[in-house]
């Protein structure tokens, strides 16, 4: 009952669409944040493998998911961590 009343009141005042609009504005921002985090990960991963991090960051930023797949295909193997020296 209360919900119905609230929704009808909001629609009457045209604020429901404002609320929906705000929500719909939030979603692209969230995707944008995810894309940025992905770019940071690609940059760090590329640098840790001795590749050009900035170049891969730009590629992933422009080509999105396709750039990410290309990066995963062409990235180098990680150098194996050095084993500790044997005990004397």
């Amino acid at each position: 009952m209360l919900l119905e009343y609230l929704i009808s009141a909001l629609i009457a005042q045209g604020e429901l669409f404002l609320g929906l609009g705000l929500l719909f504005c939030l979603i692209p921002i969230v995707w944008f944040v995810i894309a940025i985090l992905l770019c940071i990960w690609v940059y760090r991963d590329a640098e840790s493998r001795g590749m050009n991090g900035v170049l891969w960051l730009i590629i992933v930023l422009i080509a999105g998911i396709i750039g990410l797949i290309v990066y995963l295909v062409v990235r180098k193997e990680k150098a194996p961590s050095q084993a500790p020296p044997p005990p004397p």
Partner: protein
Amino acid sequence: MQLADEIINVFNFIGRLVCHQIPERTLWIGGHYLPVCARDTGAFFGLLLGYTLLPFLRRKEAKGPPNLYMSLAMTLPLWIDSFGQALGFWTSTNDLRLITGLLFGTALAPLLIYSLSLSPLKGKIPFIKNIQPKTAVLDDKDSWFDAKALGFGVILSVILFFAIRSLVGSEFSLFYWMLSIPIIVEIILHFFVLPPLLLIAALRKIIHSKLTSSLTKSSPNKQTPMFSFLFLKAQQVLNM
């Protein structure tokens, strides 16, 4: 009839949030334009096809990402077609948009599910948690969804392409509902449910790690007895 028109308006409103809806690039099926353009229609139905194939064709014990060469071969046509058109080299057709979208969506579904298992949402989404890889290791060569499975996806997406193409221009409204309802459900799930869930899970993880690190830093000796006391209490209660 009026109700149907209102629902179509709502569908178009939701479609407009994620797609340009240019009439020349949108499929006319069942007496109406679909809520999204031909390429997006293809992508959403490709995703649906990919999700349907996953439970049957995934390799349960494998840890590596879906076959990347095959995924690249399936996603590149969409990229080439869209960029070629955007740069003015050629004008794409609705058939090309639909098939490139279908291939893209079919390749994207396993990648999306796999990447979710690398995120804080791993094992938390109902249904998806049952088909996710048990352990995801990006460097592993053993593909969780191999080239053969993706190749099968290509064949099915071509069949789906001809099925959808055969409906274009029809006036039978059932076809409109058959195509637009899955599209709208997928838009809501992928754009309005998944991103907030990801955000909340990431924030929870960050806050949890901050809290635990601050607790252990501030009083490392005091916390251990309290936790062990609570643990013992919980054990007592369970044993009662």
